[in-house]
């Protein structure tokens, strides 16, 4: 390897290997100051935050609310419609929860959530997809707010990346009494392109009133819409992953960097 002569180094996107300046006559630009990112961990975490940066398994607070988890390792070249969804926590990708859903199975994890009257819940995620032959809902990952116990018929959700046949989009929707209502959707992107959105946020500003946002890497945010008719009492918060295809090269992998909660009515990162 061509090594770095510095004791300390800041990569261009925030990666940091600690140490002091090189102190010698080397390249004066070799060491620098860390850039801040909207994805940085907050100075004061909320009790509901999950950074997926500890250990190699899900914290005990999480329960599997839909689907099941397999002990088999993620393999981007494995196509499988049985055997349950595969996960990796803080291992395959450091400080991320990675999921390779079983095709046809929704894997949803959730935990108890006793929110304030006003709050924002948000996550950063990623997904893989294919240039060709994408089918409806090839891959989906999203944030869920629902009742306790977990109720698929009464929930609010926003999906970072959702694929219909040949299109990619971000969608904010509610399900009340089993009736699905789309609140907002971003522009469709072709299957052989990729959305710039990396994060999603749901904000509660008043009773029954929730707003959805999609977030880019630099903090640009797209307002996806508002609902004022979501009446269920939120008691659980969760993350959902879906894959609908076993086509080559295999079931697509999605990932969650973190889930965070901020109390108050005006937060946007």
């Amino acid at each position: 390897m061509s090594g770095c002569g510095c004791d300390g180094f800041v990569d261009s996107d925030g990666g940091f290997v600690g140490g002091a300046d090189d102190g010698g006559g080397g390249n004066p630009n070799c060491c620098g100051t860390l850039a801040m990112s909207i994805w940085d961990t907050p100075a004061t975490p909320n009790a509901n935050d999950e950074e997926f940066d500890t250990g190699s398994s899900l914290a005990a607070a999480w329960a599997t609310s839909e689907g099941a988890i397999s002990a088999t390792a993620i393999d981007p070249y494995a196509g499988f419609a049985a055997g349950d969804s595969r996960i990796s926590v803080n291992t395959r990708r450091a400080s991320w929860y990675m999921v390779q859903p079983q095709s046809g199975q929704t894997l949803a994890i959730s935990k108890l959530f006793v929110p304030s009257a006003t709050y924002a819940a948000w996550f950063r995620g990623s997904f893989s997809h294919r240039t060709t032959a994408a089918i409806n809902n090839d891959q989906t990952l999203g944030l869920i707010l629902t009742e306790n116990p977990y109720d698929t018929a009464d929930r609010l959700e926003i999906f970072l990346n959702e694929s219909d046949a040949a299109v990619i989009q971000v969608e904010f929707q509610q399900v009340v009494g089993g009736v699905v209502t789309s609140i907002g959707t971003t522009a469709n992107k072709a299957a052989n392109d990729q959305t710039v959105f990396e994060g999603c946020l749901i904000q509660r500003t008043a009773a029954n009133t929730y707003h959805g946002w999609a977030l880019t890497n630099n903090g640009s945010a797209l307002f996806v819409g508002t609902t004022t008719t979501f009446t269920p009492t939120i008691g659980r918060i969760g993350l959902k992953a879906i894959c609908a295809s076993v086509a080559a090269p295999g079931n697509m992998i999605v990932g969650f960097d973190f889930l965070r909660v901020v109390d108050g009515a005006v937060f946007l990162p």
Partner: protein
Amino acid sequence: MTSPARSIWDRPSVAHQYDDEFCGCSIALDPTWSAVEGSFTIATPIDPYAAFAAGDSRLNLSTRRMSWLMIQPIGTAPAPATNSATLTLVKTIAPPANFAVWARFSYNHRFSTATSNNDFTIGIVLSADPYDKDNRICVFLNESDVGVIQIEFLKAVGGVLTSIGVTTNLGINDHTIFEGVLIQCFGATDTYHAWAITNNGSMIYLGSTTFATTIETMGFWIADSVTTAPGNMIVGVDFIRFVEGTTFLP
């Protein structure tokens, strides 16, 4: 005080011998690299407003942009469509049967309808030793044909180019969000897969192909066919990394 977010671009805790982070405190390119197509100079600085079709491609290591190898290629034919390059830098490797090679790139381009074919191209290339442009497999983070920007996975066998996968075309006044590319090899079947990677680790699968040439060199394939205003476009390489095994994706 917050903690910095982890990034897929962060350096691995254990580097591979074939990795290059381009973060040396020297301005010289590591001697394992050699130019097998074209030539380069470090003495003449990169200038985004310099248009030149003679001389050498200009390199800057870790000073113009910290821990990046920046390249301002000479603006000249032949372009990639003719199966050659402005500058190809490779190093010799002896890979195991299964491996992945990936890199992070950047590029500049111009907002103009007058862009020529292959205004700029930068990608990973794998080939034999000595490097053989007629027998190689490569994936390009940014490639421009007239009025479009795309990422392409292709191979050359006996000089015949075959396109394996291409991302959607973007208008010249837009910009792809893909920053990285990856080629994964399954040696038992001579099968190669390629992916394009975004900042958050989202990926698009570009396809797979078989390629029988024994891989002995890896490097970068860089092309520039235009010298129009404001000047030859600059491309950059943050790193190239090598991972052994069959399931790696960042």
